[in-house]
Structure formats: C-alpha cells, structure tokens
C-alpha cells in the first residue's frame, strides 16, 4: 500500500478512488485531524494557529504570504510522506474562497521536485471522460503495486 498525495487535497473523488484501489490517500483531513486531536497550549478555536505560518517556512520563503505558508503547514508534511501523487489540473474549487492559486502552484512544484510517480488529470467534462478518468487512476494506482 502506497501513500498517495492527492490534490486538491480535500477532493472526495480522488480520496475515494485512491482508497478504493487499495492505497492510502494523503489529504488535508489527515493534517487537520492530527491538529485537533493533539492537546496543547493552543487547542485553538480554529485549526490553524500563528505557529503554522512559521512551520510553513520549511516549504515557502518568508516573503511568501502567510496564507500560503499556513496552507503549506498542512500540505508540506503530506508531500514529504508521499510515495506518489495524483493532481487534478486547475480545479475550479481550489481557487477563490476554497483555495489559493499560489499554493496550488507551489504544491505542484514541490511534488514534481520530489521525483515520485505523478498522475495529472482534468476533471471529467462528460461521461466518456469519466470512464477515461477512472481507468487512468486505476492503471496508475495498480502500477504502484501492493494494491488489494
């Protein structure tokens, strides 16, 4: 079973398909869960703390906006763990109130730097593309080995 980073990291479709084909999806939920289940001085009303923007310095430079660094404190550890990645190109909901285009670019860059197997796709626009989407994901995940 390989640990597969998914992006958008909150994607239901990618998370489901990765788990369905026998691997572990690495999405934001894992990072958030770790934060809210860890007791500490913060145990904050929100899941992000000022410290997260500092932790993000490991993946983004200091002049990068704190929003990007805060997001990287969630995505960065997942990218470090990832043995493979599936990325949907330009998903609408990863920009605007749900996301951040600069973080998208940085995440894609970091994943590509890591030299792990990557599958890049677009969300399916019709039924035929849906069939191709699922088939490609399955082929990619089967190629990673160890799937059940």
């Amino acid at each position, binding site marked *: 079973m390989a640990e597969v980073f998914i992006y958008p990291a909150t994607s*239901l*479709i990618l998370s489901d398909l990765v788990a369905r084909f026998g691997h572990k999806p690495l999405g934001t*939920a894992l990072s958030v869960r770790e934060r809210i*289940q860890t007791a500490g001085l913060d145990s904050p009303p929100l899941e992000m703390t000022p410290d997260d923007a500092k932790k993000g310095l490991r993946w983004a430079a200091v002049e990068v906006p704190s929003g990007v660094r805060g997001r990287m404190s969630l995505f960065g550890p997942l990218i470090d763990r990832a043995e493979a990645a599936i990325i949907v190109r330009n998903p609408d909901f990863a920009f605007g109130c749900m996301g951040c285009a600069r973080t998208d670019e940085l995440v894609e860059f970091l994943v590509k730097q890591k030299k792990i197997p990557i599958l890049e796709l*677009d969300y*399916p*626009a019709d039924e035929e593309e849906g069939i191709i989407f699922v088939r490609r994901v399955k082929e990619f995940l089967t190629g990673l080995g160890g799937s059940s």
Partner: protein
Amino acid sequence: MKETIPPLYAGTVTKYVFIESYKATPDDIAARAYEVSGRVMIKETCFGLQITGEEAEVERVIAHIRAFDPAHIYVKDRGFPPGDPRRCRANLGGARPGYFGHEYEMGFIRRIAIGLEELESPSERPVHESEQKETEGLSVKRLMELIEQEA
C-alpha cells in the same frame, strides 16, 4: 468561541460516506450501517453519513455499506468529528466551509460512477483515450456548462 476546546474523540477517525444512487437513499445506508455499527458513532446527514470510531471498526462498517452499491457510494476522510463547534453549522450559522468543495464534486460525480461501472462490466461503448485532451483556455463543453448554470 474563544474558550479552549480539548481534543475531541482522540485516537479515532471520522469518515464521510456520500451516496449518489438511484437504488438507495441516505436513509437506506444509515439503516445498513446501524446493522453492523458496533462501537462506531454514526451521524446521518442529507448526503449520507459521518462515521466516527477506531479506524478498523470504521473500515468494517464502510465495507458493509459500500457493498450495497459500490459505484455510487463514496468515502473520504474528515478531520473534524461530527458536531465540532468549530465546524458545525449550528454554531457558524451557515454551511460549513468544506461544503462547497463537496457540492462542486457531487455535481459531476455521476461521471465517475459511470467510469466505475464500466470497470466492473465493460460495455461495447467505444471510448477514445484522446478524448481527455490537454486544452488551452475555455473549452466549448465548459462554456456550455457555464451558460446552463447561469440560465
């Protein structure tokens, strides 16, 4: 909401179960989940369920539910447990922040369902690998979708 919130349900996992099926409703899968619920906590929602508990137990319940309609039941991890005051709409007064992402993907998840059904029982329908091409800019299909959404 400035008070400190202690870690809730430490050591557990929470998973969303979404259903988009013509054979079953969220109510049906809830009944099916209760059949084998054991030590997990189940919250019924309009789109499916949230299941909280030890990972192995949660996976067992999910496997039981999924067998009902494999291509139309989808599962993903959730960071927060159900009812967490930081996310529950009862405290926030609006849809929880992650809702919009789910709403977006549920809009076309039937295309994924067709893909999964096709894997299970391949039909004669010809599918050309070149269909999903790398396009520059806005495709006609996408433009039509936008027009329909706005109409």
